[in-house]
């Protein structure tokens, strides 16, 4: 079992976390074009290697940013969202 460090609760089992998508994928405003909405909703970076993602710690219900490697599964950093992601 891998431990992910929640910025609020510290290291917790991976099963307590939910993947939320690419960091920086900002919600378009209501008037945005279909293709902007399509990109936002469906199209992913799906990076191999180092990546930055949004995760939720289901236990404390906080959403945060996690920098990790999708091959080695090593987590390099987690941080609370500063309101920008």
């Amino acid at each position, binding site marked *: 079992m891998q431990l992910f460090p929640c910025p609020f609760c510290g290291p917790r089992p*991976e099963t307590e976390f939910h*993947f939320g998508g690419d960091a920086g994928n900002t919600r378009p405003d209501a008037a945005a074009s279909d293709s902007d909405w399509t*990109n936002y909703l469906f199209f992913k970076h*799906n990076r191999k290697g180092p990546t930055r993602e949004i995760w939720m710690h289901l236990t404390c219900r906080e959403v945060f940013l996690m920098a990790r490697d*999708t091959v080695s599964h090593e987590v390099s950093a987690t941080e609370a969202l500063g309101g920008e992601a």
Partner: protein
Amino acid sequence: MTRHYSALSVIKEGLNGQKGWAPAWRSPKPAKQYDVVIIGGGGQGLATAYYLAKTHGVKRVAVIERGWLGGGNTGRNTTAIRSNYYYPESTALYDLSLRLYETLGRELNYNIMLSQRGMMQIVSSPGEMEMAARQVNAMQINGVEARLMDRSEVQRRVPIFNFAPDARYPVYGAIYQERAGVARHDAVAWGYARAADALGVDILQQCEVQEFLTEGGRCVGVATSKGEIRAERVGMAVAGSSGVLAAKAGFRLPITSYTLQACVSEPVKPIFDTVLVSPMTGTYVSQSDKGEMVIGGGLDRVPSYGQRGNLPQLETVLSGLLEMFPVFRQLRLLRQWGGTVDVTPDSSPIFGESPLPGLYLNGGWGTGGFKAIPAGGTVFAHILATGGHHEISRPFDLNRFRTGHLLDEAAGAGIAH
């Protein structure tokens, strides 16, 4: 040299010390230019090459594989073949596949060990039983045979299942598809490879596609670890690596790569003669011809290119197995492995021209593209030969994510996504 496989040639070569067999395929040097180049030597890529040569008479075709044939998901999957999907668009694809599988061994002159032992999807509550009836009706309306089994029939067929009064997930019945079953995964890849090679297809192994060659905004070939290879049309069928190649081509896809893992037990005497899945436990199982129990389940919940599999998911799958089959408590596991699967939001595949003109997509199979190899190859060959959609592939175009016409087969996929 003996090329054709038959009982007679086995006897002949047996008497001859097995010295006369021709290699199953050549290992040619890459040419500078092909009509069609296919990236990915899994079942999808190899079947596509075969049908390009066979059905469409395309002369110069190459399959480029960075590792060995079938070394991706095709050689890692649990080989369940079925067509119990919900939407007509899916049925058209998956049932064509099942029908092609039924005659594939003869067509390829290669024993793919197809065993149509039926597949049972366990139903564990009255509410679920109503949904099961709806599923069976949908399948019948789409022209696919399927029926409901009641509890006693399930019990007759699978007496080792947990029918205890205190079972966590009681059996109310099952959805049953008679023609479903399993086949040998490597044999499907090798059979298509050998038949494609005999039709002149160049199979280039240990050759990695590193970049796309573009001219005037159009894909005109690939840069590989063995040099540049140009082509009129380039197809990619790289499953879990779709996102990596898409990034090189300058676009994104509605695909997330996850690990799907599986495991097999030590071989035991024949005890279980069908394929069984329980959506409640999220575990499915069949018994291989060698006697191993072949066990699979849902995706690991962490996006990954790791090809390993994590412990929480393995624990979920195995506790599901023991809940369903208490007798398996004594089984020992032999091997566990993982593959990187290409999961789409609607659990349906993607076919068609990519945002980079000249580059075409076959991917997004997620957890279920082995059963679809013959049909996927058939329609992708049509796309690469003509540049346009096959009737069956059109609903699976990338533009469905813009139009909103998704084909949500999360339930049809049979396991949790």
